[in-house]
């Protein structure tokens, strides 16, 4: 049974207007479409972006289901316009072997809101001493290519070197959480006058910068691919810029919150502003924006980090690090980068869809005939005061409540079916049924697929 959808009159990121014909989960045509379809979505005034891809998400399943699950995190992603997320490996048990990454992937396929493309741990148990089953994960049905101990730094230089070398065997990339552990013992917020005044232990910029400087040199010496997670300081931007000019294979990401928020928010002792790496100075915010604009920083990644209220409604030094970010990411990028004139919408497609796919080693062809119909339809003229109603995940530790933000994800389409319609999540059963149809049609890889002998 064939199904067809016409997205009519959408504005493409380059500014032109176009119809998009979707047939059986794939984009059939982009341009003027006069075919009769089962369904028409009027996209007049809406921007059609290729589905957003988040290279840095915490889905918390298995092990921390009180904070988030693959289903609820996928829903948060869809609400924010994402169609692919890369969940980090700091689950319990840790995603350091084929079984766990395949479990995460299967849960994602069953939920059906987004593609869940797991990240594997670099070291067994995130302990930083022995390499995890890197090849086992690479060869699993999940076909892992990005490895990270995120939440912890691979601080042992020998282990980092071995990891970078080892993944050359299957074109993998090591995504480093750059945090020198000795320089950040007990650290609570960005080091500086405000931390000193508040009596919160400082988290110096050099704790991030020394690791990045070390790692780009190791990556250069072994010819391997390094990805720098959530870069947050002006000095880090300089180091990555230098490394790229030198031809080192390094890519970098910045989070939406490091594009907008600054350390002074900590004066409230409100732990919703406690995050790793910490919020930095205004100079750092301006530097990471400039780095994203000139391509030194390749992508925006959310570091969506859900925590239950009891881990945030408490003393600052007791509270957990992290903030949710999937539902607000595009609005923050629009406010900080598009409205400031530093990025065009075509650039937004680059930093939130095509480059994340490239770094994550996923095929990507955007809004082209033959590509999977994963499309985000956005009303860039909308403005709203961010509230708990904007959230769709399980946790509510957002730093943006009460802020007026631009942009609204109106519809999110994943593999040809809607996961968000008129700003509301489509219910889980409808989405799961649609997902099962795509699996049956062979459009979704990963389920019931033989392990390949890579």
């Amino acid at each position, binding site marked *: 049974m064939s199904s067809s959808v016409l997205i009519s009159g959408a504005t493409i990121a380059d500014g032109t207007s176009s119809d998009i014909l979707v047939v059986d989960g794939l984009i059939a045509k982009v341009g003027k479409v006069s075919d009769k379809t089962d369904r028409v979505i009027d996209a007049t005034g809406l921007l059609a972006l290729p589905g957003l891809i988040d290279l840095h998400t915490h889905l918390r399943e298995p092990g921390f289901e009180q904070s988030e699950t693959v289903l609820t995190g996928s829903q948060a992603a869809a609400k924010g316009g994402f169609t692919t997320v890369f969940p980090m490996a700091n689950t319990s048990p840790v995603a350091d072997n084929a079984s766990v990454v395949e479990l995460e992937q299967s849960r994602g396929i069953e939920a059906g809101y987004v593609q869940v493309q797991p990240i594997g741990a670099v070291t067994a148990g995130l302990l930083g001493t022995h390499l995890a089953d890197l090849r086992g994960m690479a060869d699993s049905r999940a076909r892992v290519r990005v490895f990270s101990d995120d939440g912890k730094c691979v601080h042992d230089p020998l282990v980092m070197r071995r990891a970078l070398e080892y993944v050359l065997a299957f074109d993998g990339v090591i995504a480093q959480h750059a945090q020198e552990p000795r320089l950040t013992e007990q650290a609570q917020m960005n080091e500086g006058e405000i931390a000193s005044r508040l*009596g919160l232990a400082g988290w110096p910029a050099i704790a991030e910068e020394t690791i990045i400087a070390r790692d780009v040199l190791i990556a250069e010496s072994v010819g391997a691919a390094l990805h720098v997670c959530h870069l947050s300081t002006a000095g880090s931007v300089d180091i990555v810029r230098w490394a790229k000019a030198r031809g080192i294979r390094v890519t970098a990401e910045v989070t939406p919150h490091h594009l907008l928020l600054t350390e002074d928010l900590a004066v409230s002792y409100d732990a919703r502003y406690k995050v790793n790496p910490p919020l930095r100075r205004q100079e750092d915010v301006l530097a990471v924006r400039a780095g994203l604009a000139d391509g030194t920083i390749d992508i925006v990644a959310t570091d969506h980090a859900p925590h239950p209220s009891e881990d945030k409604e408490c003393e600052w030094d007791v509270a957990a690090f992290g903030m949710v970010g999937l539902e607000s990411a595009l609005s923050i990028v629009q406010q900080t980068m598009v409205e400031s004139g530093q990025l065009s919408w075509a650039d937004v497609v680059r930093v939130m869809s095509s480059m994340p796919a490239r770094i994550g080693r996923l095929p990507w062809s955007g809004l082209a005939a033959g590509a999977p119909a994963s499309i985000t339809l956005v009303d860039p003229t909308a403005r709203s005061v961010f509230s708990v109603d904007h959230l769709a995940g399980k946790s509510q530790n957002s730093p943006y409540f009460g802020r007026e933000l631009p942009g609204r994800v109106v519809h999110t389409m994943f593999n040809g079916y809607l996961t968000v319609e008129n700003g509301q999540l489509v219910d889980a059963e409808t989405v799961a049924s649609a997902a099962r149809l795509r699996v049956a049609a062979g459009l979704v890889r990963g389920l019931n697929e033989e392990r390949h002998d890579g």
Partner: protein
Amino acid sequence: MIPHLISTRDLSREQAIALLDISADMAESGARENKKLPALRGKTIVNLFYEDSTRTRISFEVAEKRLSADVINFSAKGSSVAKGESFKDTIVTLREMGVDGVVIRHPSSGAPHLLAERDWIDVPVINAGDGTHEHPTQALLDAYTLRAKRWGDSARSKGLDGLRVVIVGDILHSRVARSNIWLLHTLGATVTVVAPPTLLPPGLSEWPVSVSYDLDAVLAQPCDAVMMLRVQSERMRAAYFPNAHEYSAGWGLTLERFHRLSPDVMILHPGPMNRGFEISSAAADATQSLVLDQVANGVFVRMAVLYSVLTGTEVMS
């Protein structure tokens, strides 16, 4: 009127002087045969101590009892906290029991701020020391002690204008230093901090202080008061300085430094003292040492703070 006392940084000069003047009233009442005042009769105050403290807790308790308040002492040890109850749940429980004021000592910087700002409880909050943030009643009692010594009977309504105060020691981890820096500045004193570079907080250049690494050079200049801070031995283990001998030789108020000091320089220490380490016994026990005055004045200053925030008045009738 101040609804809470969380930080000396929040106090205006007028508020600070008013508190010192009320402290003077309390000191006068303390000289009477019957020391007890009825001001807080019927009020229940909880002393919420999440961190070990002897002198501060007892000082508050004496102050509360002199004002006729009913006092509940809560120590984190042996309470529901030891069973894992959250800070918020503990506070909400106290709210439901109907306390009228909270005095809180907590190892987490900002805990008293949360208590004052959140809707967990709606009563006056007094910070009795939080983490490495502030210890405002200590700074007030230090200012009171300096003012009383400097101006004697004519101290009332005065600040500390022109006073030169040197603070020596672990500025980085000291809540006493922070509260003193803000309050001394507000009251018109000039402050010099002296410490090894590793024990000075980043961003100090933005604070209203002069900074030096050289205690001898600073003490060679005229000054009115030297405040020695307690240095904890764990700082040595964490490599902030090489060993106790080297610290003491560089930054301690040793016998030799004390003998070079002019006899009218006031010596303060918030206690408890590490004798022979940051301060020699000769200095601690000298006639120019105000260490015991600080303890005695602590009760009067805490009475003044309790009276002001719980009754909402600034000047006694």
